[in-house]
């Protein structure tokens, strides 16, 4: 198991001003698997997720101790270029947030800021990304249409395509289906299942069934601490800690 680690977190603590949001979290995330982060609101799971691509940096007054290594590289090292890091670690947000641009330009945004100018090359990337996000067949005839004209589920898949277009290794998903109806949710879940062949996926979810359906591994957070992590099947049938069992069976949270 030790060799098979893509994201290695050691003693990670995070403070918003004086409030501690993460307490000594140590956690290994393997490549090409789906790892679900679960726990009641305010338990730190989203904060943990956002510390993996340093989106917490955008907030004033954040202090971090401990280490996060991705492929052996300490991402909080002074030498690390945050911009490069975020290209390797893509993120899907809770609320779909396509740019007010065309579908094509949404997906082409990442490659363009990376300096891809050639239109043929851009078109290729856009098509591949949309195919991978299972959206191509629905939009291939109107790539010029605004991304905002799509349905909620389509918008979220557009955001996934947009993230894939910069060719990341890791995809962070922050409750990607919480605002979607059951059918759109099912599509996203199916997509997650397909994407793990090429990408390492870390997903935050409030929905226990969803965690059980899509993830290989589950980590349970409670008030800033990692309580327990293990194979999803085991976590949902025979968790080691009583807190985990109580949360999963719906006794609190």
């Amino acid at each position, binding site marked *: 198991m030790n060799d098979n680690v893509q994201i290695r977190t050691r003693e990670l603590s995070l403070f918003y001003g004086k409030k501690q949001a993460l307490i000594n979290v140590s956690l290994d995330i393997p490549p090409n698997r789906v790892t679900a982060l679960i726990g009641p609101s305010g338990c730190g799971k989203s904060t943990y997720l956002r510390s993996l*691509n340093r*989106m917490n940096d*955008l907030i*004033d007054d954040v202090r971090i101790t401990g280490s996060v290594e991705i492929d052996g590289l300490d991402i909080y090292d002074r030498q690390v270029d945050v*911009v*490069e*890091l*975020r*290209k390797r670690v*893509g*993120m899907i*947000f809770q*609320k779909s*947030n*396509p*740019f*007010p641009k065309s579908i094509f330009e949404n997906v082409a*945004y*990442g490659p363009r*800021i*990376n300096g891809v100018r050639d239109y043929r090359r851009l078109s290729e990337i856009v098509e591949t990304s949309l195919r991978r996000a299972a959206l191509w067949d629905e939009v291939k005839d109107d790539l010029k249409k605004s991304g*905002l004209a799509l349905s909620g589920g389509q918008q979220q898949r557009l*955001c996934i395509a*947009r*993230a894939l277009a*910069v060719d990341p290794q890791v995809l962070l998903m922050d409750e990607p289906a919480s605002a979607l109806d059951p059918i759109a949710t099912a599509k996203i879940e199916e997509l997650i299942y397909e994407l793990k062949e090429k990408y390492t996926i870390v997903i935050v979810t409030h929905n226990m069934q969803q965690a059980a359906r899509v993830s290989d591994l589950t980590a349970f957070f409670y008030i800033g601490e990692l309580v327990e992590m293990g194979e999803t099947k085991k976590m949902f049938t025979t968790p080691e800690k009583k807190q985990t069992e109580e949360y999963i069976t719906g006794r609190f949270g």
Partner: protein
Amino acid sequence: MMTGRKVMGSMVVGGTALAALSIVAILAVILLTIVNGGKDTLSWEFLTTAPAEGMTAGGIFPAIVGTVLLVLLMSIAGVPAGVITALYLSEYASQKSILARGVRFAVNTLAGVPSIVFGLFGLGFFVQFVGTGMDRAFGGVELRWAQPNVLWASMTMALLTLPVVIVSVEEAIRNVPRDLRAASLALGATKWQTIWKIVLPNSITGILTGGILAVSRGAGEVAPILFTGAAYFLPHLPGALSDQFMHLGYHVFIMSTQSTNVDATRGIQYATTLVLLLLSFTLNLSAIVLRSRLRRRAMA
């Protein structure tokens, strides 16, 4: 007791309604007076010819050109400066930083400085300090830049309107959803790429609104240009930045205080005022339209 309260209540309602109505009435009286006085003089010819016969006849073409030139130069100097300041305040400065607070305080204070003070500042700084320095630097013997001209008037006006631009552009920039910034940054865009490709394009209506509000304020102000460039009368249109210019607002003042023949110029005064008002209304109206569009988009 009850009746006393009721009477009091209806008096308040009546009083406030009266106060509100009187504002509308005052506006109506002003507008009617001006339209009435100016409608006979206002014509295509009035708009396109120069004053004639010691300014007791003819049109106001040079004053229109001068005003347009003034606001154009003012916008070229003021809008970029305002946008950059607004960007700094909303995107780069930490809200608690002393510098950002200082800038904000300065902007608010600047907005409250009487316009005549700007005029005096423009005369002292641009005309006498910068202008004299430029003349010396170019080695000229004759006075070229160290005298009031359209460039210095525009610079002074740009300073005056800077707070308007900063405040409205900053509001527009803040209206760009955080989600969009986060999405761009999460794709590996730098802060500047995010500002250039996401923040600015999505606040362009706000930037335009700021520009228009500044222009509408600048078009109506006379005090700042009194000492910095406005001319009483010019036989020719300004051909260089170092030329003086005529201005609609100043023209009204001149016509009503310095005229040699009050009866002959009365119609011209009214018509000039009407043109100035129409210009100002049109600009404000387009700012309002732009702004409501911006709001609607921010909601969606």
